[in-house]
């Protein structure tokens, strides 16, 4: 068994197990910390796929910045446990059954699609398909310059929106 395949299975196992625990966990603080583990597993997969730039971005931006934002909010709200709201309007078990059914149907659909997709018989790529940060940066600022600028405006809007939404005075206008 080649080293690459072993590494793939190791990282895939890390990603799947930690992600499952994220969803199962009842304490959001643990969920966030486990999701960081999942991101690290995915970053390892990105390295295997000759994408070191994205792997580093994944660690720095996703695991570093976004997850810290989540952790900050979880601790700010200080409501870690999931509680069940007693109500006669919403049947919690019914919602769960329908949700579980939808998830299983989705899994079956994906399995069906993946087992049928034999059209794309891609051979193993050669090693020159490893892209440097310089090459990616050049493409981002040339071919994808418009998308890049649009993203910057999107982030500005999101920032203003987040500040407005979360500010204490927005509730009582």
């Amino acid at each position, binding site marked *: 068994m080649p080293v690459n395949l072993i590494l793939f299975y190791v990282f895939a196992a890390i990603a799947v197990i930690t992600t499952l625990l994220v969803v199962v966990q009842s304490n959001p603080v643990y969920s966030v910390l486990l999701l960081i583990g999942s991101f690290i597993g995915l970053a390892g997969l990105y390295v295997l796929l000759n*994408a070191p730039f994205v792997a580093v971005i994944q660690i720095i*931006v996703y695991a570093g910045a*976004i997850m810290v934002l989540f952790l900050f909010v979880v601790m700010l709200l200080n409501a870690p446990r999931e509680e069940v709201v007693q109500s006669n309007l919403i049947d919690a078990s019914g919602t769960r059954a*329908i949700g*579980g059914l939808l998830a299983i149907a989705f899994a079956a659909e994906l399995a069906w699609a*993946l087992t049928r997709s034999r059209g794309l018989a*891609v051979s193993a790529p050669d090693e020159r398909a490893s892209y440097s940060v310089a090459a990616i940066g050049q493409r981002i600022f040339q071919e994808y310059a418009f998308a890049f600028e649009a993203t910057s405006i999107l982030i500005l809007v999101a920032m203003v929106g987040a500040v407005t*939404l979360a500010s204490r005075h927005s*509730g009582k206008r």
Partner: protein
Amino acid sequence: MAELNHYLILSGVLFTIGTAGVLLRRNLITVLLSIEVMLNAVNLTFIAFGHFLGSSDGQIIVFFVITVAAAEAAVGLALVIALFRHVETLNPDAFRQLRG
């Protein structure tokens, strides 16, 4: 050498876990985290296809997806904070003041 289908199946598994989390969990934070899981599954697909088709487009699109995910997380968490201030809970079933 892991093949393309390995990565696609892994991505499908992760996306399904994320979907199940969104549908089954009753905690807004966990729902947002599950959305992040789904975004990551899609990112993995992009990178895998980019690698196996010999193109860097996949990586560039993932770069944009990560920035958009950051914006989404910021706005989503701001909404969670605003909602929590009104209702003092994170259970989405509790937000029903618009119900007729």
